[in-house]
């Protein structure tokens, strides 16, 4: 069979697709009623959803927002909708709103946690959105000191001097580097430790005596509610990031002893429930400290939560490291960069970028797990809900508080998980 040569003389333009395959009708046919099984599923699901909503919606919306006690609430509901109706008594949320959010933070200073929170978003922005100028990262690095100072208050010198410790470390590195590397490392480690332990306290006191700049100190047992969740969650995740990176590197090295310790630590932490670690924080940590050390429960919880999330972060970062092509290490080596330069300039920026979704999920997990601190007597939202119910005005209230707390957690976690999905998508396309 001979074939006929063919040349198209006129190119065809785009045509719109046939109507059956687009538009609402086409959509419904494809997505809801494609075949009998599919249609049946649609109908059943609709029924179940309708049933659920018909119970839930009246409770949520035919409800009381203004009342001083549960009894008053019940009375208002009975008067307005009759005794059959059971509506929510959101008045408790209204009355205790500030407490649920800030705990017992002095009312006059609420701007401080608020500002801290806003600044946190600013500090996070350059980490989370890679499009922003890199220079903003400087603020992100400084933020932990600023945030801690804003929340806990005290003289402005404390965070400044703590920061200066890193300057001292750099100085030690420089000075020691002139002589030799051993001295450089030793000085870079020892000098800042000496600075923090010996110099910082007296110097800080001296400076505050000279120039008493500062904020009214607020003790952390005044922290409560969602603020405690956010503070514990954020501190633990920020602190655990460097620790987690070190552990991940430790787990990856060829150095047997370092690797064994890293693995042992990671596996131990990941093998026990967080609640046992919190118990350690609340009942045992003092045994492990020199007599007389006494830091407050929230700080102890933050330490434990940090160790906890560090183990998880380490695994996430290890995933990021593993995802990097070997060529990146080799290219860095062949250019003459040393191990730490390569890590800092080449490997970590990429590995962390890959790991961000994982880090965000770790954070979500940790943030949710902060509710466990209610078990050791910290008044996080759940702990507070118990305390509120111990008030005779609200004794017996139940669903409303949990619904509210659950809702807020959902808002936080959901938006974060959406963000991490967005990142994952971005990374996926970025790799192609």
């Amino acid at each position, binding site marked *: 069979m001979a*074939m006929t*040569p063919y040349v198209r003389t006129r*190119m*065809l333009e785009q045509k719109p697709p*046939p109507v059956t395959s687009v538009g609402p009708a086409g959509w419904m046919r494809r997505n809801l009623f494609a075949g009998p099984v599919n249609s049946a599923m649609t109908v059943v699901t609709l029924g179940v959803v309708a049933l659920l909503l018909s119970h839930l919606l009246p409770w949520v919306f035919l409800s009381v927002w203004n009342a001083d006690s549960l009894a008053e609430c019940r009375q208002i509901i009975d008067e307005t909708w009759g005794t059959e109706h059971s509506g929510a008594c959101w008045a408790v949320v209204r009355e205790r709103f500030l407490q649920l959010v800030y705990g017992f933070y002095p009312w006059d200073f609420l701007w401080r946690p608020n500002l801290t929170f806003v600044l946190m978003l600013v500090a996070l922005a350059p980490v989370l959105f890679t499009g922003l100028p890199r220079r903003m990262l400087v603020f992100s690095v400084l933020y932990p000191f600023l945030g801690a100072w804003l929340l806990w208050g005290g003289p402005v010198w404390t965070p400044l001097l703590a920061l200066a410790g890193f300057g001292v470390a750099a100085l030690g590195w420089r000075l020691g580097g002139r002589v030799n590397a051993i001295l450089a490392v030793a000085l870079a480690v020892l000098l800042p430790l000496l600075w923090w332990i010996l110099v910082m306290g007296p110097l800080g006191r001296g400076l505050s005596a000279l120039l008493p700049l500062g904020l009214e100190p607020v003790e952390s047992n005044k922290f409560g509610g969602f603020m405690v969740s956010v503070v514990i969650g954020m501190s633990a995740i920020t602190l655990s990031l460097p620790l987690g990176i070190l552990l991940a590197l430790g787990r990856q090295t060829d150095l047997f002893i370092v690797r064994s310790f890293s693995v042992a630590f990671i596996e131990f932490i990941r093998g026990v429930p967080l609640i046992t670690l919190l118990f350690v924080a609340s009942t045992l940590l003092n045994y492990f400290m020199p007599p007389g050390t006494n830091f407050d429960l929230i700080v102890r919880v933050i330490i434990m939560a940090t160790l906890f999330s560090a183990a998880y972060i380490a695994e996430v970062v290890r995933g990021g490291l593993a995802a990097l092509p070997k060529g990146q290490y080799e290219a860095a080596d062949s250019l003459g960069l040393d191990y730490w330069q390569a890590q800092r300039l080449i490997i970590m920026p990429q590995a962390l970028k890959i790991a961000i979704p994982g880090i965000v999920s770790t954070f979500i997990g940790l943030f949710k797990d902060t509710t466990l601190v209610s078990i050791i007597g910290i008044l996080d939202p759940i702990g507070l809900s118990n305390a509120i119910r111990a008030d005779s005005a609200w004794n017996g209230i139940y669903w409303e508080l949990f619904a509210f707390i659950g809702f807020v957690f959902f808002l936080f976690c959901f938006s974060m998980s959406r963000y991490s999905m967005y990142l994952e998508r971005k990374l996926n396309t970025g790799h192609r």
Partner: protein
Amino acid sequence: MAVSDEVAIDIRSMNKWYGQFHVLRDINLTVYRGERIVICGPSGSGKSTMIRCINALEEHQEGKITVDGTVLSSDLKNIDKVRSEVGMCFQHFNLFPHLTILENCTLAPIWVRKVPRKEAIETAMHYLEKVKIPDQANKYPGQLSGGQQQRVAIARSLCMRPKIMLFDEPTSALDPEMIKEVLDTMIQLAEEGMTMLCVTHEMGFAQAVANRVIFMDQGQIVEQNEPRAFFNNPQSERTKLFLSQILGH
């Protein structure tokens, strides 16, 4: 390499959209039994989509595709029938990594054609010999080189004894040394008279075995001709431009 006048594939005024995007526009193509057709064209011109429509991996919205006398409709039976007559090789081989080479080749005959295992194994070994890797039969795909994997993929399709073979850029994911192995296998197949549609940019291959080259652009068949004429004397401007890029260096 005889071309009969029986029609193997017949595409009439076929149109396809992805959402609002009109990927394939008024495709008309008749392939006769024994023909070896090479399809080329710039990236995104719809080559893959077209041959995927032929074995119903993609639905088309308008027009009629008849494969070996069976009209492709939404009827599952027709689709099954067509698929068991048409073999397909993908750019990324898509071997089943959890099965050995032999299992890859016998899976479909056993479960679709209901061939007894022994017979299926014999057939598989036959085709594996044909593609020159009988000794790899008990390895897993991950243990083979790209070229070997692609040859397994071809053998796997052949085990279903298809009447028509579709190839979608079978060599473009391969290292240069391995391209030759695969092209050799395909040439051999062509010599045995298999009806073949092949999306490829290996112009050497096109010149050696194709009896028709189709050039696509913007979802349309822009030019078709026998290879010599196509390469030496392209008619349309687009074809010329494309060929100058491809053969450039």
